[in-house]
């Protein structure tokens, strides 16, 4: 359970990035935070993992308030996958990288070997354990990052624009692993992105515009708010645009069925 109360953050004196943010995410929920570049979404991720300190307000994770003293304990419960596949790959090989978090937590070697194997299989990278990062694609590197995070068994996983530097193939691979996670493990997943396609399968979508929450609901509810999305500098799904046209067209019959079909298409892929 993640709770942010009255959180205020700015990098410099005059420009607050996040103002008076209040947000509660219950355990096991899959939330997507949508926002344009600069809206403060990545700042939220860094605040939740304790890399940044809120200027005002409190952050509570699973009942523990996030402070300098508790940050190490909190990091055992929260894992994060960053945007740049290279800049979070620490190990010289896939195996070494997945091991990194486990080594930091003084997990015994036999246990590490077991966990590495298990999580490599989970993300489909078990045949790559001895490969070096330069021989991997972006999608493969991100999957290794996910395995490394999962191996610690956190309750909450943050994905901070984890696919924005990937090609479509890599994006598909990563999103497949994420939706797998949702099915199999009862983790709280917080997905941060500007890509509406990735928000489709979440339980809840929150839209951030210039540091403030401007929408909070199911994907269905949020995707239909065309004006709000445009104002928040986000795109509208093509299917939504077609729905609009269908509704406007005077000559089209079966409009209700078409609209329903389009909604189904949106969430089916």
């Amino acid at each position, binding site marked *: 359970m993640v709770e942010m109360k009255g959180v205020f953050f700015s990098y410099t004196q005059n420009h607050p990035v996040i103002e008076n943010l209040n947000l509660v995410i219950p355990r096991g929920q899959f939330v997507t935070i949508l926002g344009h570049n600069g809206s403060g979404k990545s700042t939220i991720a*860094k605040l939740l*993992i*304790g*890399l940044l300190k809120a200027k005002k307000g409190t952050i509570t994770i699973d009942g523990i308030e996030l402070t300098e003293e508790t940050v*190490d304990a909190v*990091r*055992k419960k929260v*894992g*994060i996958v*960053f945007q*740049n596949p*290279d*800049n*979070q*790959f*620490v*190990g*010289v090989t896939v*195996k*070494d990288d997945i*091991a*990194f*978090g*486990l*080594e*930091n*937590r*003084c*997990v*015994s*070697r036999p246990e*590490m*070997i077991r966990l*590495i194997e298990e999580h490599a299989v989970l993300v489909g990278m078990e045949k790559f354990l001895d490969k*070096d*990062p*330069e021989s991997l694609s972006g999608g493969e590197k991100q999957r290794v990052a996910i395995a*490394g*995070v999962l191996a*610690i068994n956190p309750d909450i996983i943050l994905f901070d624009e984890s696919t924005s530097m990937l090609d479509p193939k890599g994006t598909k691979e990563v999103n497949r692993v994420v939706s797998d996670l949702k099915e199999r493990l009862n983790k709280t997943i917080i997905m941060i992105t500007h890509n509406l396609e990735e928000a489709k399968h979440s339980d809840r979508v929150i839209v951030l515009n210039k540091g403030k929450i401007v929408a909070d609901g199911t994907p269905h509810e949020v995707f239909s708010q065309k004006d709000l999305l445009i104002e928040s500098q986000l795109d509208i799904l093509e299917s939504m645009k077609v729905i609009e046209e269908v509704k406007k067209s005077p000559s089209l019959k079966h409009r209700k069925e078409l609209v329903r079909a389009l909604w189904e298409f949106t969430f089916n892929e």
Partner: protein
Amino acid sequence: MNNKIVFGQYYHADSWIHRLDPRVKIILIFLLMTAIFLIDDFLILGVAIFLGFVVIASSKVPIKRFLRSLRQIFVLLLFTFFFQIVFNRSGEMVLDLTMNINVFNLSILAFMLVIYGSLYKHIRKKGRWFLAILAVFVFYQIYTLNVDPVYTYRFMVYEKGLSTAGFVVLRILILILISSLLTLSTKPTDLNNGLEAVLSPLEKIGLKTSILAMMIAIALRFIPTLLNEAFKILKAQASRGVDFREGKLKDKIVQIVSLLIPMFIISFKRAEDLSDAMEARGYIPGEKRTKINEMRMKWTDVISLVVVIGLMVGLVYMRVSQ
């Protein structure tokens, strides 16, 4: 891109040396290097060299790789050798040559230098051979021509000079070969782990060896990545008209800056991101952590250590009892 960049000197093979524990290898190299300086007898040096070659042969690393490292210090060896020979004047005289520099061979010398200078671009690699031939030619001249000398020099070589020169050169040679053996047979990451373990006692006096080792490990991880990125930046700047082959010094500086600054910026961003990622994954510099990579001593390690230590003891005993 398909550039497979293999950096460092590591040559992959499956030999007993490759399989030695890296910690043991580091200690052995250190001991052997010390041992070399304890030898002052040509016979023993000869035996050492022979054993060295046996070990090198058993490493399954092609000789060419070893020669590569020797080539780099060739000039140093040559210089040291001649330095000793010319200036060390103790012991009996072994050679007495009178060198006459006269008008004839002086002009031949000048002529050959001019040819060398103008052909430099074409015979870059073979230039050294050319110089050698030139030297021989000049020396030969000294004996055969009976023309009035402009300047006479008496070239004398003494016994001690010759033997010291020989010793120094052979010692340097062996040192280079031993250290090459280490880097050719050990992966950089294993070397790092081994070094970390060997230096870990220094933690007690406040030297943070674990942090140092982590820094080196990260550097090793990113060298191929940085190289690839440097290539990309070179291409981007080349597309903007940068041509490293032309331009005056002033232009060359800007060209290099156009590569360096982006590399710095990328590296700083990377450092920032990477430290965030490491921190988020629970890394605390200096704190105890377990290791996935294990180093285990085997029989070969123990035997090697015993043999080398035994040799050392023997050498020390010999020196002391002289």
